[in-house]
């Protein structure tokens, strides 16, 4: 166990039938660190995210959050999914709290009344802290713009992250200006004491915001390098494996 590791992935293997989606993957994320998780489609990134967030249980190995094993989905790891995982038919506030509504009474889970006032106040405070501007928190999310929806998804992930947040392609569907804003937000997180795992296909983006890059290929971890411009080529070759199919200095990715 590393001294300051917020999250440690220790020898995690996950099989679906005969196919090993993850094969003894190990790495650690230190406090206030932004770690990029790189890999081609099917490299095992999404499976790893699901293991970290508690949706999948690893077949072998364990995941530790601040030294204790991750169990279930309420472990304090915030996840922002590629497809945003929003409910278009529900309000902004409800989306932020979906699955963990403040309830009275709190037990048994799900049987209490939702404390709507508390939820609205907390939602307003969270969005204010993250400087996300939504005029009316009772608006159904389906009626918001793409950028606003993304902002809510990211806020939701961050709001419940005590120490670490996983961002799965947070900028994939965004325009340039919205992308810049989301990345700026990602960059603020370490200052607030929250470590970040960033999944991205965009190496420029990774170099701009990440400290370190962990590279997966066919379920195996094949490299771990500092996310600097000098290592750009190294990262590309690790992602695609073997010799580089370089075309005009760019790969087929992106």
């Amino acid at each position, binding site marked *: 166990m590393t001294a300051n590791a917020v999250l440690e992935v220790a020898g995690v293997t996950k099989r679906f039938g005969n196919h090993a989606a993850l094969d003894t993957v190990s790495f650690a994320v230190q406090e206030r660190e932004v770690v990029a998780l790189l890999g081609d489609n099917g490299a095992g990134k999404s499976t790893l995210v699901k293991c970290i*967030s508690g*949706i999948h249980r690893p077949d072998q190995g364990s995941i530790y959050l601040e030294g204790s094993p991750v169990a*279930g*989905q*309420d472990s304090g790891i915030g*996840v922002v*999914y590629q*497809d*945003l*995982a*929003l*409910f*278009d*038919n*529900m309000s902004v506030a*409800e989306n932020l709290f*979906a*699955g*963990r*509504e403040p*309830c009275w009474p709190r037990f048994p*889970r*799900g*049987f*209490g*009344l*939702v404390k*709507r006032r508390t939820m609205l106040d907390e939602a307003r405070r969270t969005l204010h802290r993250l*400087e*996300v*501007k*939504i*005029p*009316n928190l009772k*608006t159904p999310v389906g*009626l*918001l713009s793409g*950028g*606003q929806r993304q*902002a809510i998804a*990211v*806020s939701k992930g961050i709001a419940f992250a005590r120490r670490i947040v996983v961002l799965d392609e947070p900028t994939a569907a965004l325009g340039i*200006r*919205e992308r*810049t*804003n*989301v*990345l*700026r*937000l990602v*960059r*603020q997180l*370490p*200052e607030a004491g929250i470590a970040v795992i960033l999944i991205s296909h*965009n190496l*420029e*983006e990774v*170099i*701009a*915001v990440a400290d370190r890059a962990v590279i997966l290929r066919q379920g195996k971890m094949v490299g771990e390098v500092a996310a600097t411009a000098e290592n750009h080529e190294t990262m590309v070759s690790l992602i695609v494996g073997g010799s580089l199919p370089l075309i005009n200095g760019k790969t087929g990715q992106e």
Partner: protein
Amino acid sequence: MVELKKPALGSTLVSGHPEPDGTTQASQRRSMALTVALRLIAAGPLLVLLCIWLVFSLLSPYFLSTSNVTNILVQSSSVALLALGALVVVMVGSLDLSLGSTVGLCTIVGAVIFRDYPSLGWFVIPLLLLIGLAIGIVNALCIVSLRIGNAFIVTLGMLYVIQSLSYVVSGGTQVPGVPNHVIALANESLFGIPGPVLLVIACGGLLWLLLNRVAWGRWIVAIGGNRDAASKVGIPTRKVLFSVYIIASVFAAVTGILVAGLNNSGTVDNGTSILQAIAAVVIGGASLTGGRGSVWYTVVGAVILGSITNGLTLLSVSPNWTPFAIGAVLVAAVGLDTLRTSVEGKLRIRQAQIQAGGAV
């Protein structure tokens, strides 16, 4: 790519339109007008009901009399109750076609128990609720746990199975006579309000509380909106879905108790009552793809159907035309709802623009 190494604190994530220095009164007034317009549009089913009542009251002076309105409400009560059960399933984007057969089976079991073991009459209501619970569990096991197939097919099969059981239990005929307290529930009044109406209000109130205020009910709505997302945020989707079929069947059992009391007999359901209930749900503005629906507008939907039947009878129109009118209203209601959704969307975007102080 922009250089982002230096964290820029105080940045704004969503760069909407800048706050206007002074929001003009005109745009405030426009925002108010839009809010009113949105409220009106959202009240669609109620407006349809008022239109229908207006037309019938012009054609027949007797239509809006207290006794006839009471009649309409009592006649609509069984469809309304069953529709509330159907609504729960529709909320998650599914259907339960077996609910009507469950109503029939419950009326028959109630009547047969009373005929063969009159001393066990007190036990009829709890027994019927248990039957509803059991059928709900079977449905849920097949659909949610065993994942046999889609709910439409599984519950279509269950429709036949339960109907067949009803014939077996009843011997294929109507069974007259049910316990006195069941008759009382359906035929007596409290504070001048008929029992069936009170029953609908009570059950509707409970369901409203569940779907709008209780976390479990919000999860039902969330699953209807986006099932994938629901499991990702940690909602126990399978447990919630399981409960949905049970709640629906228990509502069907309550409907069965009511119908038995109203008819003072047990009758096999011919399979059309669930179709009426689903029609009421749709006329009440629910979306069959899930996530959108209202308890009280579902009741309004049932009252719309009841008003049409009642009004046409008052006007001495041949009952052969009643299904025609119901079908036409159903299609019109769905068309109106589609129109409503698109207009509503446009208005809301407009409202958001005005609130954000954007270009008008």
